[in-house]
């Protein structure tokens, strides 16, 4: 490959194409750009030589590595680029320059951040992902989406500020900004970086920007958003904090708590947003385990998740596009008019639920296996709970309430062809990744061969993956969990889908915080004039008193006191002089 092309970061190509798309008015030309740029990006990436710095710079004394591919970031970047292509196809029915440009630039920033070789370059593209992605929420052009976008931007910028702060400390203590993993959270600045990554990964209590913003984005926007930010954070954690034990518990908590929210949530795009939390939890947990096989599991599961979650988001986007709603209480029976979308949604649901022959079966199991082999009993039980939970909300609830269940009577057209095409390709990837490796590069073998620790992955594949034991235990869990659904439905124990908003930790700032600020404003409005009057009253009285004492007409200016003042002043000066002399002597 020519040197110029070798040094061209595929992420930069996407950002350039995204910026160009903002100015291309001809729809067809813009569509060609949005589809061709990711394809070229994939080609650039797969022909790049690994473990070589392809582009670097020295800025203000900082050595920046702008483009470097290795075993860990290759699969993340590849997934981002393929997702960007699918997103572009999915958006072909629209004519929105800003959305097209923002989607491409956002994907490009995620790729560039992943391929960065130092913390400062990572920070720059970290911020570009925040700024570019906010337009995908704003383009929904509702007031709700506007406010959600502002909250989203605030949280994302906070993540960037924390990261920059941490970088400054690290530069001072280490003297360099290379992506050398941190082993100690008490090292100066490291906690800031950990929190910055934690916000983007949506750690518990730092998570609500995701469920707040993603469901309010455009039809295309939520599909695009689901792919990049959280997985970029997973990559950053895997790069900088492998084996950090806190992450095991944080990740396990992330897998469990969204299950309860997803069960009662009515907005199906919000259910999928909780599902993102849940799946990222598995990855964070794997990073915490930190063994080569666990990092393989994290990478593989992130790759698979980008496509099965994208597929589920696409199917809900198609439903929203055709019906105008994704509320479970208003939907049902859509398989009658959207059979292709139904099939693709079911494939996504089976993939995320880890049915054998579907993608998560070959990816999530690596993480759970490593947790078990490390002897974390409670974590193992939490992850198994989360596996049953993900079957509930993403495996059953999403397809059941949208496409089956009670017939809403809604009859619409099937999704546009471009949406079906994007869903079809994503569905193919979900199935292909889950297939046995009949040849070394077929099915999951293709994915395992690209993992950062290939030998360990192949060993796992040979000894455990498609063993009867693994297939039986997984099927047992899934069959009995589905049976639980049928039993609960049959005996009317399953809670009905109801309209309403579910309170989460964002209540603290959206209601309590907002209420507190509003109350303080009201108090100030009412108490302000009284306080001002009291202030001027006190200062006025003080002025009058001082004037009465010190002004030329005041008490102290009268003749009787003038002599006394002179005497006292002379005495005080004499004392000061004596003290000065004695001190000097």
């Amino acid at each position, binding site marked *: 490959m020519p040197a110029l092309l070798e040094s061209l970061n595929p992420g930069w190509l996407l950002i350039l194409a995204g910026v160009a798309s903002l100015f291309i008015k001809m729809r067809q030309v813009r569509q060609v750009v949005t589809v061709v740029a990711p394809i070229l990006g994939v080609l650039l990436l797969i022909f790049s030589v690994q473990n070589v710095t392809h582009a670097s710079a020295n800025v203000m004394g900082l050595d920046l590595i702008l483009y470097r591919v290795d075993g860990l970031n290759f699969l993340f970047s590849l997934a981002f680029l393929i997702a960007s292509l699918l997103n572009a196809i999915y958006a072909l029915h629209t004519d929105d320059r800003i959305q097209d440009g923002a989607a491409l630039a956002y994907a490009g920033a995620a790729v560039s951040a992943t391929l960065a070789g130092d913390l400062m370059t990572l920070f720059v593209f970290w911020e570009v992902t925040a700024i570019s992605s906010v337009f995908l929420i704003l383009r929904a052009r509702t007031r709700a989406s506007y406010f959600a976008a502002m909250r989203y931007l605030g949280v994302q910028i906070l993540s960037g500020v924390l990261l920059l702060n941490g970088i400054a400390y690290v530069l001072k203590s280490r003297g360099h900004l290379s992506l050398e993993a941190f082993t100690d959270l008490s090292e100066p600045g490291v906690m800031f970086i950990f929190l910055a990554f934690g916000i983007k990964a949506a750690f518990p209590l730092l998570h609500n920007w995701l469920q707040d913003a993603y469901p309010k984005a455009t039809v295309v926007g939520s599909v695009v958003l689901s792919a990049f930010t959280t997985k970029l954070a997973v990559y950053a954690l895997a790069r900088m904090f492998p084996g950090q034990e806190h992450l095991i518990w944080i990740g396990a908590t992330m897998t469990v708590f969204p299950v309860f929210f997803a069960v009662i949530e009515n907005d199906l795009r919000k259910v999928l947003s909780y599902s993102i939390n849940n799946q990222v939890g598995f990855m964070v947990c794997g990073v915490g385990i930190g063994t080569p096989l666990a990092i393989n599991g994290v990478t593989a599961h992130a790759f698979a998740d980008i496509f099965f979650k994208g597929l589920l988001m696409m199917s809900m986007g198609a439903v929203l596009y055709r019906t105008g709603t994704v509320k479970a209480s208003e939907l049902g029976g859509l398989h009658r008019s959207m059979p292709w979308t139904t099939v693709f949604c079911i494939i996504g649901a089976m993939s995320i639920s880890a049915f054998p022959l579907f993608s998560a079966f070959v990816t999530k199991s690596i993480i759970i296996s490593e947790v078990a082999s490390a*002897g974390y009993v409670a974590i193992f039980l939490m992850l198994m709970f989360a596996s049953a939970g993900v079957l509930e909300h993403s495996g059953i609830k999403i397809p059941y309430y949208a496409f089956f269940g009670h017939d809403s009577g809604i009859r619409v057209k099937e999704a546009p062809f471009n949406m079906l095409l994007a869903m079809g390709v994503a569905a193919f990837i979900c199935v292909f990744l889950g297939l046995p490796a009949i040849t070394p590069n077929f099915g999951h073998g293709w994915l395992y061969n690209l993992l950062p620790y290939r030998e360990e992955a192949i060993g796992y594949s040979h000894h455990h993956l498609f063993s009867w034991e693994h297939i039986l235990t997984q099927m047992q869990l899934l069959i009995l969990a589905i049976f639980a659904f049928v039993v609960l439905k049959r005996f009317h124990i399953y809670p009905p889908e109801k309209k309403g908003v579910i309170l989460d930790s964002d209540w603290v700032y959206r209601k309590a915080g907002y209420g507190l600020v509003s109350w303080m404003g009201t108090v100030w409005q009412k108490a302000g004039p009284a306080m001002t009057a009291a202030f001027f009253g006190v200062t006025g009285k003080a002025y009058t008193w001082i004037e009465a004492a010190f002004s030329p007409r005041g008490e102290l200016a009268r003749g009787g006191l003038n002599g006394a003042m002179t005497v006292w002043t002379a005495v005080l000066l004499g004392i000061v002089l004596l003290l000065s002399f004695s001190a000097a002597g």
Partner: protein
Amino acid sequence: MSDETGSGRDTSGRFVKRAAEQVHNLHTPGADGIHPLAKILFGWTHRKGIANIIFWVLGALAVISIVADLAMKRHDYMSFANATGFYGIYGFLCFSFAVVMGWPLGRLLRRDENYYGDAGGPPEGVDPDAPLGGDAPAAHSAAEGDA
């Protein structure tokens, strides 16, 4: 539209073969709005008593999976996970627990849709023919807000 001539032309003289016509019909919803493919793929879900059949088939599969477990020597890292039917029973209990918790949690956490301000309608760009959304800009009045 049917091919009467046997030459691959339809009665209007156009090159529309019967296969193409069938494909076209397969993707054209009938007057009832139901997609023909839906009848082929999911017609079985409309059968009377299908809920009962699914219940019993799943129950049978559950039993079979546990019986098969009896015949298999497993080597789980966690010794308790080697117990027969552990994964199935644990999955059943976890699933049921998560769902049943939906009742108290729903009562505790569910609020009116406009709790944070007017929830509004769908985003801009949905199909203008969408039955529950329609023309997006009209669905969002100036009063819409979000605290």
